[in-house]
């Protein structure tokens, strides 16, 4: 459950016939758009359009922001090595970087962890991470459980040392955070049980070796039965049964990504990768009610988070 090394083989590099058809459709769509554009255009290349809905969304946001000024073209092996590429998945980012490590890239829909694993230097690269910043998630946890003093973080062995900053942020908020390493799928419950004995809530992280489709049930059920809340890591987890999370709608992620694109075309530089500024809060009211925990509304939580972020 925690091995995602084969994702590329499964998804990107071995397209199925259906996938091929979809690629073709996206290609046609983009070609059509580029055919109608004028001569004064900048050109943005786009990679990772597996999902037509997502491609369409990006297309429409590009149009809304740049009108005719920007031409969106599909990325391929012939794309010039200094042209800016917008990637829409971790796989696409990996592919683009593998083909040309110096290609300027703006990455979308890739988590901070995935992105950092692919990109080891910041040059000619920027990103809007798809996962919510853990600082924000921590603050959400604190707002929801005002009495919280301790936070448990579950981590795979590989990522265990990447939480120093979160632990510092927790300390700033008056929370003690502690990382519990899940050494193998077999020890998930054992390690979770220790984590639950420590933390007032569990902070979900974008570590997909820990938080994934296969672990969602044992993670959420065991925590619930021990009367511990799980914050995050994503919106689907909240639907599945974690109590709340912040998230940034795809549209906002694209818009913020296009801000980076705009900066590139205006200055020839790419700002540092960052988490999205815009966000929403989602809560699972049924779970909160069942745990006899009255919650403020989603909007009120969002406003509190914004005002906290503004204070800092």
């Amino acid at each position, binding site marked *: 459950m925690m091995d995602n090394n084969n994702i590329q083989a*499964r998804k990107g590099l071995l397209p199925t016939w259906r996938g091929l058809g979809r690629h073709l459709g996206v290609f046609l769509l983009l070609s059509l758009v580029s055919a109608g554009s004028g001569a004064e255009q900048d050109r943005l290349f786009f990679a990772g359009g597996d999902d037509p809905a997502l491609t369409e969304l990006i297309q429409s946001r590009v149009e809304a922001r740049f009108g005719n000024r920007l031409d969106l073209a599909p990325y391929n092996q012939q794309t010039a090595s200094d042209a800016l590429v917008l990637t829409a998945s971790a796989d696409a980012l990996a592919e683009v970087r593998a083909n040309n490590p110096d290609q300027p890239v703006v990455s979308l829909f890739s988590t901070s962890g995935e992105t950092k694993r692919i990109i080891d230097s910041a040059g000619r690269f920027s990103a809007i991470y798809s996962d919510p910043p853990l600082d924000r998630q921590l603050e959400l946890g604190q707002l929801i459980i*005002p009495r919280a003093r301790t936070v448990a973080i579950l981590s795979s062995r590989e990522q265990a040392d990447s939480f120093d900053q979160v632990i510092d942020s927790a300390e700033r908020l008056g929370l003690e955070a502690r990382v519990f390493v899940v050494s193998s799928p077999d020890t*998930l419950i054992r390690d979770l049980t220790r984590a639950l004995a420590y933390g007032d809530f569990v902070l979900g992280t974008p570590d997909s070796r820990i938080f994934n489709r296969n672990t969602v049930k044992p993670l959420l059920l065991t925590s619930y039965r021990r009367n511990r809340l799980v914050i995050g890591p*994503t919106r689907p987890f909240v639907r599945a049964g974690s109590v709340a999370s912040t998230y940034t709608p795809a549209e906002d992620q694209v818009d913020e990504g296009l801000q980076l694109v705009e900066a590139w075309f205006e200055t020839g530089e790419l700002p540092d990768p960052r988490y999205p500024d815009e966000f929403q809060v989602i809560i699972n009211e049924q779970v909160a009610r069942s745990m006899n925990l009255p919650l403020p509304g989603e909007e009120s939580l969002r406003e509190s988070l914004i005002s906290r972020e503004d204070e800092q």
Partner: protein
Amino acid sequence: MAHHRPAPLVVLPLFFTLAANVSLARDESQSSYHELPGAPEMAAPETGDLPQVLTASRLRQSKANTPGTVTILEGEFIRDLGILNLWDVFRLVPGMTVGYVGSNDPVVSYHGTVAVEQRRLQVLVDGRSYYNASLADMDWTNLPVPLDEVERIEVTRGPNAASYGANSFLAVINIITRSPSDTHGVELRGSEGLRGDDGFGHYYGSIGSRNGPLDWRLSLNQRRSDGFDFRYARDDTGSRTDEKVDNYDGYDTLSLNYAGELELSAADTLDMEMGYHDVHEEEDPALYSNFNPQNKPTTSGEDWHASLKWHHEPATDRFFHFQLYYQTRERRRTIRARVDELVPDAPAFEADVNEDLEEERVHAEFQQTHILSPALRIVYGASYREDRYESDTFFNGEGETNRSRVFSNIEYSLTPWLVANVGGMWEEDSLGGDFFSPRGAANIHLSQNQTLRFVVSKAHRLPDPFESSPNWQYRAANVSPDALAELIEGERAGPSVTPSSPDNPIQPLEEETILSRELSYLIQQRLRGGLFQAEVKLFRDSLTNLIAGQTNLGDDPDDEQRWDLDNSVDLTQKGFELEGSLNLGDNFFRATYAYLDTDGTYKGSPNQARDPQFYLTLEQRMNARHSGSATWLRRFGGNTSAAFTYYFTDEIRTNHFERLDTRLARSWHFEQSLVELAAIYRHYLTDDPLYREDNNWADRNHFFAEARIRF
């Protein structure tokens, strides 16, 4: 009665393991653990999708929507307070009292009534009823539930026959143990009395894991106590003197439990439980003074249980469970009796008499839930239970009762602020005919945080076989001298309560009835930096036809202490109860208080010779006008915690109870393990005996040490 069959039970875990392996081989593709990793939902939170885990069948009902007041105590909270005996937990429940009858036998009640053979509570452990069938009462000492395995205890404070059937009369205690899917790894825990109660020891060990689709846990629990410190010696007439003598009322029990949870498919789970419990209890010889006991009587015994529960959830809005369980209980107690003069000028003799008893129970239950819309939920089901019992002494043989039930409850949100619950159970009992127990409740949500409840419910308690058809007389065995053996060896002799006793004292008994009215208010309020929750319950309960009287042997119709049970008492109980908690930063405060006012009416019975007040008092022995508790839990960072709890009961019989418990704990979180050390100090604020004059501690201060490791 069929004897319990240990061999098949021993084979069961093997079967479970085999079943798991077979299922693993067949079902590997369906097991969620073998699917490919699903990272896309992380990469694109907008498009990812996960199965709903906390579905309606798994979520607990919020307090705001329960059709009656329910006190919920988390296992973790109980352990944090330093509670070492399960029955002590109920001192935290408003309206509940705890006493000790007989030879250090704990009794728990809600809204009091009788102490000896308290039979008006339903006690369930993971859906299994632990209410004994024949001599109906609750054997708390031998409830095979390690405190370490308690996930939570839900006490429905009020009759809940609509959900749990007859005998869910005053309250229902529902003990839920930890799922084996939550307890992987090894846990060891020991508590030892160091001073004051230095014979106390509690040792627990469990090991669990997941193999294929099977989560399992095996645990062992030993509990021992040397009981109270002293009692008062009796004089020749049987009255207490001032002389203090050692109590002989300890116990030593051992439980071995297996729990398994087998994932049959995405929609089906099978819960399996089985357990063995070994009993050794000392009995105070003073309780057998009529026999002039020549030995120190002990009770030994073995209990077995096995349960299968199948959950089927094809969709989140409809699901059912089917549970089948079997349990046996066996007790052996032999008293070497000495009779100096059976009739004038007769020679003295000695004989063994026993109070052996065997019981077994089979229960099958089906329950289906339909969520027809977010506003409408229907639960219905049926169950069948059969109890067999055998005792030469109490029943002159064996007997059997059975009970069939159908039940239903409809929860309907008429408007967002009004939730109505209407439910009922119809049951037919082989001893007592058929009954209907209805319940209606309206929960009015005054605001998002405040709820007002109106509840009316009715329940029945049926007389148990011992109350309604005893055949109680002792049989002599191993008689000496030999000269008398020929006469009485193997004969039932001496005082009796049987249908053929002179002026047969056994009255035909009817069921008892309770009509309970409740008005309660719940507030759950977020505070800056905390959470406040409070619940107030006002009640007025009418208990009619209560079976009151004495359960003593005797042949002489003029003996006023002789057996005289009859439906002779009505009680009206009214009062109010508070339960509140405040969670503020590192501090957690909780307080409970209960006020109970009882009016009794004696309806008279031709065979009850004593003063009416005697019977009324008997039915109020566990009543306390004032009782409550206050708790302060304080954490110092993530590793150190302190708990202070004050309990009081004013008063049970004539005894005032006040106790202060303190627990200090420090834990260490190592990379692969958790270690916790704790010290518990228990201080009794009064020298009053606990319920019975013979239940005394020599020292008001008790110290315990506790250690726990999990890896």
